């Protein structure tokens, strides 16, 4: 017994050093590598398929199709308008969330993020119930101003803003919390009112966060489908945005659907490229 133990003991450090050498050489356990590769393929292969399947020879011709151009223009206009709406309301909202010391701000923050996890189609239904012709607010819009949101381009913008706003608010809120508030104090000692401080000090300091939030918000608005089709419908030229056009084209003209998808894909890649390095690095906020 004693001799066996004595012999076994020196053998163990050797085994350990061999294993650690393997780890240093980058040897990863297969049980992790295989699912990781599967996951990677799962994310990349469909996009590659899109590129492979694209009708490249007729691509330009199809892009020039007035229906495609109309949907693209509507998408860009609506997503940009929705982003402006989100900036105008979302930046002040983020400021209140980040700076207010009132109790209940955590509840408000939770409410703001609801559209983030809510199925967009539910958002569309909720918008219809409130802003629809017979909705809680919509009936008065109709009665007093003769103005109706559903199934109009304005309705598209409302639906997109509803879904996209949390992206902006969360991004700007994070940037504001990360910003050094002592700069605001310095501005105050220099005689700046809170509004001037906000414009001339706070906004420039969190500009990268606002830009990142606006890009995310715009991308989300551009891809919006569920809330848009529920609240605004699917009228070519008026409420039919690119995602709706893709869905519709898939049933009649798959090649057109592929071309439209490629356009949206290209826009997404551009968004990612614009968000690279400083905007999405942790110290940007």
């Amino acid at each position: 017994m004693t001799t066996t133990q004595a012999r076994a003991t020196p053998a163990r450090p050797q085994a350990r050093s061999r294993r650690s050498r393997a780890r240093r050489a980058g040897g990863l356990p297969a049980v992790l590598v295989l699912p990781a590769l599967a996951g990677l393929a799962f994310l990349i292969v469909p996009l590659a398929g899109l590129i492979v399947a694209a009708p490249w020879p007729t691509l330009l011709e199809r892009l020039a199709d007035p229906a495609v151009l109309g949907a693209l223009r509507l998408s860009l206009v609506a997503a940009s308008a929705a982003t402006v709406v989100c900036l105008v309301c979302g930046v002040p909202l983020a400021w209140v969330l980040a700076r207010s010391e009132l109790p209940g701000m955590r509840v408000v923050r939770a409410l703001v993020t609801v559209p983030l996890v809510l199925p967009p189609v539910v958002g569309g239904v909720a918008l219809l119930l409130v802003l629809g012709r017979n909705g809680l607010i919509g009936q008065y819009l109709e009665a007093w101003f003769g103005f109706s949101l559903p199934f109009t381009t304005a309705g598209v913008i409302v639906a997109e803003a509803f879904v996209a706003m949390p992206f902006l608010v969360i991004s700007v809120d994070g940037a504001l919390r990360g910003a050094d508030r002592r700069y605001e104090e310095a501005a105050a000692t220099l005689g700046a009112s809170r509004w001037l401080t906000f414009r001339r000090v706070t906004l420039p300091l969190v500009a990268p966060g606002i830009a990142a939030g606006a890009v995310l918000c715009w991308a989300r608005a551009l891809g919006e489908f569920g809330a848009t089709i529920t609240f605004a419908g699917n009228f070519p030229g008026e409420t039919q945005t690119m995602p709706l056009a893709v869905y519709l084209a898939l049933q009649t003209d798959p090649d057109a659907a592929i071309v439209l998808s490629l356009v949206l894909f290209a826009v997404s890649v551009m968004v990612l490229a614009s968000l690279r390095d400083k905007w999405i690095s942790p110290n940007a906020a």
Partner: protein
Amino acid sequence: MSLHAELTVDRGARFTLNLGLTAESGETIGLLGPNGAGKSTALRALAGLLALSSGRIELDGQVLDDAAADEFVPPERRPAGVVFQDYLLFPHLSALDNVAFGLRARGMDRRSARQRAQTWLRRVGIGDHARSRPRALSGGQAQRVALARALVTDPRLLLLDEPLAALDASTRIEVRSELRHHLADYPGTTVLVTHDPLDAMVLADRLLVLEGGHVVQQGTPTEVAHHPRSDYVAQLVGVNLYRGTSRGTTVDLTTGGTLTTATRSDGDVLVAFGPTAVSLHRTQPDSSARNTWPVQVHSLEGHGTITRVQLTGHPDVLADITPAAVTDLDLEPGTPLWAELKATEIRTYPA
């Protein structure tokens, strides 16, 4: 023109700041103490970045904060300029626009504000860096921009929070000397927060030594250094400081006496050394030290681990010695002694 302040700020159960502060215009008050003594809290209360728990602040008859009467003037409406410890220059604005910011906030048009800002940048010696962003400025340059930014609006109260702490040693000497000149020209009241006794001695007309949120001693820097009331104050404010005229390594002191320094300098200088650098002897020492002179014991103050001996002579000097040495030398007021000081212990600054 004067500042009257009774500052009481409660920061939870553990810390309360309580200090009375009176200053005439043109005067510089030094708040000296270690980290956590409440210096910065006092400054923030004066700037209006913190409301008083009780007490009041009055500047030239105008009430800035009165806890009992529920009066509070917010920071943007106080006639105060602040230089923050790490300056807090706005990173997205040029040096010029940083300085012009306060003027613009007061409604001055862009052109006049920039002109005035440029004048101030020249006055603090960095007129050439007007277009630079703060990131491109050295520590000393940033400090000067911060000072110009605080002074450009002609505040009646200037608040300096460790204005030299972020600078390296050589820049510090230069900026300290400049700051002294600017403070001498400044007509308002200055409150300077520092943990460096030398800054306090050089820049302040009067010192308030803080410990744990309370004033433990106040007086002119000389009074405090000569008669520290506690071991704590003695160690904090232990410095011999003289003005003089230097020729090479010889400094003629304005109060009489001559010191030999290890470093060369010319013109008006400040020379400083700690009380521990001075040793005392019954007979004239025969040593390599370049400075020996006869002195007489004026007073002795024991503070536990050290005894501070105030000696008269040319020049007068403070020496810290151990209680054992007091016994060995058989010291009492009037005892004649020799003071000895190594040239290498003396620091020289341009005045």
